[in-house]
């Protein structure tokens, strides 16, 4: 039980990550898939930032007063990863937009049936 | 003139012949002469090499290393000298014959024909003189690809489907059976060079030798053992000079030569005899001999009949290789020469009959013997040689094969060979009998084509004359035998 509380950030991360994956796998709507991807990636970011926390540490920005700072390296890495995630989401959304323009729908089932019809 | 240079010259000459034929494509006589000139040059070179091998000279040249343990080398073996002699000498006659046939039959695209013919001969010579199994494989494939346009020469629907069958069977068997077998040999021994006594003994696991032999005999599709034989009758749609080339000189001989060379110089007769791994092949070869002879009897089309006769005769050579005793190998090697001479005679005659009298079927030959006496004379000579009657050269190879099977105590095989000769008598001599005993009621207009008549007469007479000089060839052949 104490493990559960001590490692609560791990469990939160797993819940969020699996939730995001679940949305990606089961959604029929492409827009929801992009959102699921964003949740999945955010889960990872949250996890690493939470790992960076040092006891009684504050944000890793130099000031004259504080002594303990959280580990800045994960923060930096996650900043990079967030940027990548933003770009991925943006591209995903742009693609969804184009799919909508071409297919008039963004539901996976409808698109598949449209493609099957045009193949015949 | 150094020995290595002779090899290069011999292999390149047909390519030059092809090149010059192309350059002179607008002058028919000049173009066709290059086949004859090339044939003469390669024949002289092959003869010199043949003599040299008898005197234990070495003919070898290495160009570069292909990969670990395998170089691009040419090395003339005793068997190779025999094959190259056959190929080059018959090329001369086939070129003369081609001139007569193509002009007499009015075939189109003769330049393309001559060019690919020459390239095919080049590939056959390179196979004969290859120094290791990979070089043999490379030129074996080149032979397939260069004879493909020859098979499909007429470019009608029948030729195209025949060409497709030809290519798919030969390339398919090479890639699926032959090439993996080569890999396997290389993996086990680290080399692919031809050596006296073979390279597999003590290196290759004996329990898998039967499997390897199977992969080789089915992979070398040009040897036409059943069931890989279908391409041969299909390829009969080609003009007869191609059939003569395919069935006497280049393609099928390359096939059985490759198999024989693999048995003698890669597997090694001793290893084979120790493990008895090719005994099953003896029976398969016998089956092929009998089955194709029986099918030949049912064929009315003369070329189809000769095609099945060829399948049967090729299995004689495979039989000899499978028996692997010294007499059997002697017979098999010598059979390359005897069958080549005999079969080319028969095919030349079949083509001559077509060109002069426009007859393809045996049943239509009634009374033609009197109108085409020279052709029928040559045909009879060739047939008697194939049947194996003394004093024809074919009797020697049959004799050795029968002796070889007795040496290995396969008495039944000897009996089968005898029965096969009887069947040969029937289906080979039937045309002669029909030609001279029945009178035809119709008037047949004859086209004059003397150049198609003299080559078979020459080869037919050779079958008779060389009987007395057999030792000349047999000396080289004994170099083949080990222990």
């Amino acid at each position, binding site marked *: 039980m104490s493990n559960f509380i001590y490692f609560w950030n791990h469990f939160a991360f797993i819940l969020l990550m699996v939730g995001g994956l679940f949305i990606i796998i089961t959604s029929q709507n492409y827009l929801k898939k992009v959102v699921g991807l964003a949740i999945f990636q955010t889960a*990872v970011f949250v996890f690493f930032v939470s790992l960076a926390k040092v006891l009684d540490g504050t944000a890793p920005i130099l000031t004259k007063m504080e002594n303990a700072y959280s580990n800045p390296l994960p923060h930096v890495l996650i900043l*990079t990863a967030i940027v990548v995630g933003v770009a991925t989401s943006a591209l995903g959304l742009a693609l969804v937009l184009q799919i909508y323009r071409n297919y008039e729908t963004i539901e996976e089932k409808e698109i598949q049936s449209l493609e099957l019809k045009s193949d015949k | 003139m150094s020995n290595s240079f002779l090899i290069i010259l011999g292999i390149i000459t047909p390519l030059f012949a092809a090149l010059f034929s192309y350059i002179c494509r607008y002058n028919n006589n000049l173009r066709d002469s290059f086949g004859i000139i090339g044939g003469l040059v390669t024949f002289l070179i092959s003869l010199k090499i043949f003599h040299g091998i008898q005197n234990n000279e070495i003919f070898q040249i290495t160009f570069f290393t292909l990969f670990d343990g395998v170089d691009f080398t040419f090395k003339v073996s005793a068997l190779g000298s025999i094959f190259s002699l056959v190929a080059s000498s018959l090329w001369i006659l086939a070129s003369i014959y081609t001139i007569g046939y193509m002009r007499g039959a009015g075939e189109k695209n003769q330049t393309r024909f001559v060019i690919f013919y020459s390239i095919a001969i080049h590939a056959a010579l390179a196979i004969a003189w290859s120094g290791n199994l990979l070089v043999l494989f490379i030129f074996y494939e080149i032979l397939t690809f260069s004879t493909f346009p020859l098979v499909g020469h007429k470019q009608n629907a029948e030729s195209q489907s025949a060409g497709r069958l030809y290519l798919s069977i030969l390339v398919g068997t090479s890639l*699926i059976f032959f090439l993996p077998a080569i890999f396997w040999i290389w993996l086990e021994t680290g080399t692919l060079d031809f050596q006296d006594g073979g390279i597999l003994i003590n290196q290759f696991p004996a329990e898998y030798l039967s499997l390897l032999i199977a992969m080789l005999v089915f992979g070398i599709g040009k040897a036409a053992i059943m069931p890989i034989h279908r391409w041969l009758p299909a390829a009969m749609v080609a003009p007869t000079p191609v059939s003569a080339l395919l069935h006497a000189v280049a393609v099928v001989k390359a096939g059985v030569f490759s198999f024989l060379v693999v048995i003698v110089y890669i597997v090694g007769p001793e290893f084979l005899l120790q493990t008895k791994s090719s005994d099953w092949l003896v029976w398969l070869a016998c089956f092929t001999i009998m089955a194709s002879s029986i099918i030949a009897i049912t064929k009315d089309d003369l070329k189809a009949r000769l095609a099945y006769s060829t399948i049967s005769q090729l299995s004689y050579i495979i039989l000899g290789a499978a028996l692997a005793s010294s007499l059997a190998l002697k017979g098999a090697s010598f059979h390359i020469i005897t069958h080549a001479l005999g079969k080319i005679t028969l095919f030349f005659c079949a083509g001559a009959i077509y060109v002069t009298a426009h007859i393809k079927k045996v049943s239509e030959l009634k009374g033609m013997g009197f109108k085409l006496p020279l052709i029928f004379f040559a045909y009879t000579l060739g047939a008697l040689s194939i049947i194996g009657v003394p004093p024809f050269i074919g009797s020697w190879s049959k004799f050795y094969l029968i002796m070889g099977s007795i040496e290995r105590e396969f008495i039944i095989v000897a009996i089968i060979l005898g029965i096969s000769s009887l069947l040969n008598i029937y289906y080979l001599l039937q045309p002669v009998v029909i030609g001279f005993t029945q009178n035809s009621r119709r008037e047949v207009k004859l086209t004059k084509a003397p150049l198609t008549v003299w080559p078979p007469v020459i080869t037919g007479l050779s079958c008779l004359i060389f009987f007395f000089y057999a030792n000349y060839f047999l000396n080289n052949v004994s170099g083949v035998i080990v222990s």
Partner: protein
Amino acid sequence: MFNIFLDDAAALVVVLPLLISAIIAFMPSKIWPWIISLVTLVLHLVLSLHLLKEISISGLIIYEFGNWEPPWGISFKIDGVNIGLQLLFSIFVLISTFYSRKIFLSEIDSRDSGKAYSLWLLAIGSLNGIILTNDIFNLFVFLEISALASISLIALGAGQNRKALLAAFNYLIIGAIGATFYVIGVGFAYAMTGTLNMNDLVIQLAQYSDGQLAIFAGMSFMLIGLMVKAAIFPVHIWLPPAYSYAPSAVSTLLAALATKTILYFFVRLLYEVFIIYPSYLSLFLDFVLYPLSLLAIFIGTLIAIYQDDIKKLLAFSSIAQIGYITLAFSLKDHSGITSGFIHIFNHALIKGGLFMAVGYFAILYKDRVTLSSLRGFGYKYPITSFALLICGLSLIGLPLTNGFISKLYLFQALYTNQMYFSIALVAVSSALAVAYFWKIVEQMWFSEIKFKSEKEDAYIYLPIWIITVSIIFFGIYSSPIIEFSNLSADYLISGYQN
């Protein structure tokens, strides 16, 4: 003066295409982006050759960004393992950019030329970064840049067929999941060792002599993430639609190089870093990579036989070929790694050549290139068709082509490790590959239709023939490729100390 340029060659190789990509992004002209790209890639080749010269002298280059010493800074490492790949990369992107002139511009709107080439250079720069980087997080960055650029390039094929959008989207989702898994793994590795530099990672990991669960979890995440990106069975799903609906020039570039660079990093990670835990490595290689490779080879070839669409056929054939490469790498010894690298080189050339030839047919035919659409093309476009024939024969492994050399060394590596079942499987799938190749040949030369030969565009058949000639050249004189691969294997197996 050039020395300033050449000193930073390791960084410029990656940065130069990225910079130029930004410059040409909004050029309205149709042809200038192509010309500028070409010039950039020529400079790129010059830089790569300079790096080769440096390596032949010193054997190792570590380039530290911002002069931050490792392990704090990000560094690029060039040594015997990746110099061969770098050279292949430079030469191939130059040839395919030259090839792309007619092909690319006929499949996309000419107003988009600037953007298209900007994405092209972006993809090239980031793929090159994957080859050179020595930092595991830096790899993620380059992985994602190349993925985003590739996705946009694939989506450009929507002008021809709107399924390209679906293929790109699919790739986006699956690729992002894979990359994120990789980041999770990186995070675990960082959490346990405090470093991201690959050389330092080896040192730091050694302190955990028997390994900890967190490290194994992290390693597994990293490897699975890379497997998704490298299209190893069964997470290869994104590859066939992506490569077949992309514009032809894009398929050429991606099929030849994209997965290869990731496979290179994969093998480097395995044998340089994870070699610290040999039992884990054996577990992964024997029970995960080896069976999946066999499945990839067999199933990829089988599915390819039933494909009608030529580009999909080639894509599934790529899956099988990637299977050959990973099979070679899963053998854990020198001969295996050598044959894996040999096939990386050879397959890049073969697939590049095949996609180039099919790409030409695609723009001629203006529709999906299917088996039936290829009828008689052997006579209509003899030059390109003959090149396709030779590349296909190399795929099957006919002697005198470089594909034969790959197969040879693969068989030898399998044989040395006594993996007879694998040998049989590889032999069977080679025979099966003949089946789908024969179907193509039959349609092109043996169908009833006979065309007169038409004039072919030299801009297009020239690069195709350069690749074809190199296929035959390396089939006969295979020493350079074998030397490079042996060098890579030497570096990886002997263990490399910074």
